[in-house]
């Protein structure tokens, strides 16, 4: 039974049950902390998300897209899913990703997004802005 543990986002905290044949030819459930090919696939999927987030952050900072685009990715959502969560059409959410439209959004709409993203409205508005210290 492979025991390749991956110290990444608590993956190593869980020992999964895997079925394996013992010496007597009988199947039993065995705890496995992971298998290398599986870990490679897990890590690759997360790396792709991190890369996308870094790319989107640059666009937010450059004023090309609104923070909604970044938080959507951060929460692992896509456009159809986010639209369902905020109760809007996809084209509306797409518009809200334009900085000029985002800046005009009502407090109510901003609160809706913030609650879906599990953050405050301030955090949503200030993403990518330089700290004024």
């Amino acid at each position, binding site marked *: 039974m492979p025991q390749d543990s991956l110290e990444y986002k608590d993956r190593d905290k869980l020992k999964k*049950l895997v079925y394996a044949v013992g010496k007597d030819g009988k199947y039993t459930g065995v705890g496995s902390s992971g298998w290398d*090919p599986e870990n490679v696939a897990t890590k690759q999927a997360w790396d792709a998300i991190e890369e996308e987030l870094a790319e989107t952050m640059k666009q937010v900072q450059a004023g090309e897209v609104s923070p909604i685009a970044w938080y959507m990715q951060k929460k*692992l959502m896509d456009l159809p899913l986010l639209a369902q969560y905020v109760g809007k059409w996809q084209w509306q959410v797409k518009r809200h990703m334009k900085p000029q439209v985002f800046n005009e959004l009502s407090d109510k709409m901003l609160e809706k997004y913030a609650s879906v993203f599990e953050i405050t409205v301030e955090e949503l508005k200030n993403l990518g802005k330089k700290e004024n210290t």
Partner: protein
Amino acid sequence: MSTIEYNHSQHAHCESGVTANLLRHQGLDISEPMAFGIGAGIFFAHIPFIKVSGTPGSTFRTWPGAIFKRVTERLHIKAKAQKFSSPEKAMLALDQAVEAGKPTGMLSSVFYLPYLPEAFRFHFNAHNLVVYGKESNEYLVSDPVLEDVARIAPEDLAKARFAKGTPEPRGFMYNITEVPKQVDYAKAIEKGIKQTVFFMMSPPLPWFGNKAIFLLADKIRKYPTKLPPRKASLYLGNIIRMQEEIGTGGAGFRYLYAAFLQEAGEMLKRDDLQEMSAELTAIGDEWRNFAYNAARQMKARQTDVVSYDELSLLLRGCGEKEKDFFKRLGKLKW
């Protein structure tokens, strides 16, 4: 505040695990592999035009909810299932069920279960777990993929039960209401096996059952010419994740099903089932070999280590062997 005396056992897969645990709670001694086999849990599908987080959808198991439904029907167990129009109603009904001493199974989104490692937390909405108590305003959870029981805050559980996306759980929850004194395993095993063979071998569409393995093999062969290397690698990775990362018990549920065939063989004193079990274990090893080589390709991100052609061939091999395997499984005498 109430807590039900509930024996949590860890299992490979959430739905067959919850099914086995709930039935054992009612005094029916059933293993996870037995629940999985009677519920005809093993399957394969590859649907390139349905994208899940940007990658084509693949699955090694039947659709969510089917295992529990089939096991209860085949063993003549009475169960009650409910959906709700609001989180408030769903949580109230859960509180009442727990208060009444009923451990309750439910659907949830993995994304909103903070007790799971973050590495696993994607928007997957068909995760099964059991709530068996409430203590200091926290729910006591028996999640079959965990070694031990866990706790969850009511707000988190409500979110998980009312996640959006596909499928929407809508607070879906279920209890076992009545278990007969005697259950006829032989008949249930036979029905489960026949249904598995039917779903594997008969769908005329290329996306479902055994045919879909060949479809995927063809797609993989074309990845290097059709996709940028990075995307090809992510697509491959997704297959491995479906096969190994989520709770499949290894080799995309093939080992779990082989464990079922072995147990069924012992129970019914049939050597043919035992032999089929050993064969499926060998096929499972081939799936693992495919995953191993796919991961080597992903690590290198170059096409010269293990070529996509070779990966496609390995997968075809799995498809050919399973085709022969399920055909013969369907010819067993009952």
